[in-house]
């Protein structure tokens, strides 16, 4: 039998024997960023469609979680940097070829925007809220006047935020598992699904919950389609991508991926949401928690498995 034995003298920390340079910080940020993108996207969408009275939670209440998620995500990103004191270098350059540069600048737009949106609607939760300074009141008045413009900017920037996390990975041809353009739409869909789930959880309005359950169901369908499509693409590609797919089709990530991400994170909540739409009484927290859990696991598994997939030479 022909055999090939490769012995390498290299043993660099975090690189060998298997690349593991990105830890929990990156997938955590990817989840929080995706969730924030989902929340802001729906808020912007229904503002533009003049449905802010109908879908009050989605437009006014749920997006208040976005700045919290983004700030926590940014903290995670900051913790991941090895040369932390130089982080400001991200903002002295714009590098169009680097997805990470795009991401840094998108966050620079989305984070303040989510904070402004929260400030605009904080009186919906705390009616006695007092800004104390007239300048702030006037500023918020100004933003209210230009709410539609703001919503358009938010719609576009949140879509970029949601999709860029996937593009960040897919731009690395060195890691065959990540090197698929499906990851962008898949992560966007997963973020939108997580956002819709949070709206379902927070909303007390039956019509709104029904609308977002329908939306979530549709997005889960899209996610499943994208996952199947991704594996079809891998299996029809080169050996390294076939090997990457095999990490999930019999390899070490098979059980966590299919059980946690696909079954518990997509199929079970989809069935539960479907049953609820048909009139069954199901505690809303169950499908919501499962969707969020699946969304977290998707990022963790793709981030870790991607680092395990490589070119052989």
């Amino acid at each position: 039998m022909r055999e090939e034995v490769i012995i390498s003298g290299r043993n660099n920390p975090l690189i060998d024997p298997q690349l593991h340079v990105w830890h929990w910080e990156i997938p955590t940020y990817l989840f929080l960023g995706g969730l924030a993108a989902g929340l802001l996207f729906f808020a912007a969408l229904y503002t533009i469609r003049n449905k802010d009275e109908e879908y009050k939670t989605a437009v006014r209440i749920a997006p208040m979680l976005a700045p919290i998620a983004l700030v926590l995500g940014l903290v995670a990103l900051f913790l991941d940097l090895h040369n932390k004191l130089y982080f400001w270098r991200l903002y002295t350059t714009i590098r169009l070829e680097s997805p990470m540069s795009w991401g840094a600048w998108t966050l620079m737009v989305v984070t303040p925007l989510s904070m402004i949106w929260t400030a605009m609607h904080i009186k919906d939760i705390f009616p006695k809220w007092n800004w104390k300074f007239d300048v702030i009141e006037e500023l918020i008045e100004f933003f209210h006047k230009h709410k539609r413009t703001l919503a358009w900017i938010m719609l576009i920037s949140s879509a970029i935020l949601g999709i860029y996390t996937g593009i960040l990975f897919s731009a690395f041809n060195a890691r065959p598992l990540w090197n698929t353009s499906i990851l962008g739409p898949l992560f966007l869909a997963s973020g939108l699904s997580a956002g819709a789930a949070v709206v379902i959880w927070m909303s007390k309005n039956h019509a709104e919950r029904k609308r977002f359950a329908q939306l979530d169901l549709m997005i889960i369908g899209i996610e499943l389609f994208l996952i199947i499509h991704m594996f079809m693409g891998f299996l029809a590609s080169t050996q390294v991508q076939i090997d990457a797919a095999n990490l999930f089709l019999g390899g070490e990530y098979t059980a966590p991926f299919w059980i946690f991400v696909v079954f518990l994170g997509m199929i079970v909540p989809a069935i539960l949401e479907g049953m609820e739409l048909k009139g069954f009484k199901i505690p809303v927290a169950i499908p919501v928690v499962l969707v969020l859990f699946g969304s977290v696991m998707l990022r963790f598994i793709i981030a870790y498995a991607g680092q395990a997939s490589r070119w052989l030479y």
Partner: protein
Amino acid sequence: MAIDTKKCVGCCDCVVACQTENDVPIGYCRDWVVEVMDGTYPQLEMELRSERCNHCENSPCVRCCPTGASHYSEGGTVLVTKNECIGCSACITSCPYDARFVHPEGYVDKCTFCLHRVKKGMQPACVSVCPTKCMYFGDLDDPRSEVSQILKKRKYKTLIPEAGTKPHLYFLI
């Protein structure tokens, strides 16, 4: 740079020379030796390769760097500017050769082709110490340079050319 896999004996002198010359932290290396045993017993073939950063012409690390710390320098060498690097590790994941690592001081480090020596007219540390003289370093744009001449005469390969990085490390076979 061209490396003669037929002459290399895998002594790792290049590795030690690099670590000494460049003050590489203990436990890390910028170059390393790979031993590949291939074939059906007893017809076995062994190849020894002294590997390092390929200083690619189409470098994914330069492309994905969000701050521009990874850049092309003189003669097409790929370098990292220490105080522009934020240590995000994007370049590390982008490199199909896994040639980079995070220096304990926080920035990303790798082979520089000993540009500081080359500028003074010397050879890179690894090349200068090689006891079998299996490495050739020079200007590939100059058809009369030793490295260009040897690549004309000998058969060679590059590592993972299908990754599209246009590597500049040539292994004579």
